[in-house]
């Protein structure tokens, strides 16, 4: 490539560019991989005591052990179930309220101020109240997660619907689309990108809220595993659980983003 750079400059550009682009997605792995190496070195050399931070290999072994014994799947399954149910419920209710306040000025004047202030309550603050109301069973956890997922969906959809281009609504009126048809063919498709942004945020918050719920009141789940690791003084379990949350949260985010890209296109 560097031989006759003087004469070959024109071809070097286009030829070299794709080879860099091909490896570009892998660049994001360089820093994490380096961190894992540093992590291993500092623990192995005793800079950080192993009872505070286990080596990466130890964490992997622990996770593998939990998986092999079957214990891990129970935790993962129940956490996933809570996130799916809670996020589903939160998104559904968010769609209903977002649609109502987006379409009706009266509904917005009635509900929006309240919902706007409720959204500022931190997730953990709800936990004692939900435990008091719904006990320590699944209901409390699912509802707590639903609260988390609700707000981004509500806020984005409500503004999205209210912001639908007046000019397009006039088109719907001139061509007598009627209320239902104009919602189906104009308003909802126009607000769909906003809804998907809301769902992505809602799913993200569902993961935050599931940790809040499971840390405080659960006998199963990844959040329980996390707090159990602290009780047992097992940093490998704690770090392993955090990595599990990171992995699952990322998977769901990528999935939602993929759906959004497909639906909205381009």
């Amino acid at each position: 490539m560097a031989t006759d750079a003087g004469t070959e400059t024109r071809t070097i550009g286009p030829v070299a560019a794709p080879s860099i682009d091909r490896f570009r997605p892998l660049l994001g792995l360089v820093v994490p991989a380096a961190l894992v190496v540093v992590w291993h070195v500092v623990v192995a050399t005793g800079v950080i005591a192993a009872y505070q931070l286990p080596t990466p290999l130890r964490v992997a072994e622990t996770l593998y052990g939990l998986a092999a014994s079957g214990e891990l799947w129970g935790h993962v399954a129940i956490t996933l179930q809570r996130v799916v149910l809670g996020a589903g419920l939160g998104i559904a209710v968010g769609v209903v309220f977002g649609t109502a306040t987006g379409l009706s000025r009266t509904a917005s004047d009635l509900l929006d101020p309240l919902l706007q202030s409720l959204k500022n309550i931190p997730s953990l603050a709800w936990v004692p109240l939900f435990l008091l109301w719904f006990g320590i069973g699944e209901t409390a956890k699912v509802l707590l997660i639903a609260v988390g997922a609700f707000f981004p969906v509500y806020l984005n959809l409500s503004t999205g619907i209210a912001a639908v281009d007046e000019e397009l609504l006039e088109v719907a009126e001139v061509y007598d689309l009627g209320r239902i048809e104009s919602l189906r063919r104009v308003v909802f498709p126009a607000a769909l990108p906003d809804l998907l942004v809301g769902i992505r945020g809602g799913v993200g918050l569902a993961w935050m809220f599931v940790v809040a719920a499971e840390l405080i009141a659960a006998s199963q789940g990844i959040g329980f595993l996390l707090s159990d690791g602290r009780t047992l003084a097992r940093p490998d379990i704690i770090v392993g659980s955090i990595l599990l949350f990171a992995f699952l949260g990322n998977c769901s985010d990528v999935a939602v983003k993929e759906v959004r890209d497909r639906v909205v296109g381009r």
Partner: protein
Amino acid sequence: MSSDADGPATPTESADPVLAVDGLRKRYDDTVALDGVDLAVADGEFVAVVGPSGCGKSTLLRVLSGLEAEFDGRVAVDGTDVRDGGSDAVGMVFQEPRLLDWADVRENVAVGLPADVDPQSPAARDRVDDLIETIGLDGFAESHPDELSGGMAQRVALARGLAYDPSVLLLDEPFSALDRLTKADQQDHLLDVWEARDTTVVLVTHDVEEAVYLADRVVVLGGQPGSVASVVDVDIDRPRERADPELVALRREVTTALGR
């Protein structure tokens, strides 16, 4: 025409007008946009409305299309007041194409289909495809608005208006955003469609040359609030020559009526 509003035998200059405007007065809060506008458009006629900006041309179309419910006077399409559903018989092409940018051309045209037509039915699909061919966009049925040029997008809007099969097709300066050459093409294209389909057209424009070249009759709006300042008949056979001395003379007449 003014005394007895309904009844089929209203005495007008021609046979029952498709579009009848009597003593229209439209105000927005403190501003009166239109006052005492009278207009009758016969079936199959091509009428152009010209006027300086701010004379209420677009307001007139908004009233005719039923987008403005509050006004005084009588505006009727096919004998039905626009406030009582007469506007259902009106299609409109706006200044901007106003297409649904997430939908393809076929779906955008289908928006104009009358409410009682199921857009999924084979007949409706044929009609939409036929219109897409009429506007010269065959092969673009699956394209999205962002893949179309300004002129093409405006023709999709025209097809949407035609899909509606309106008694009157209203056009609000539809070519004003196009460059000169595209504009001339689109004008000729509109004439072809109008002749082929026997549509009644009311075109609002600020372009005197366009008005005289296209229309059977040019209505000049003027004043503030706007009213009909004069009406110029264009009795020239089509196809017309843009440079025809008669046409140029009429253009001058309209320009004079505009007070310029």
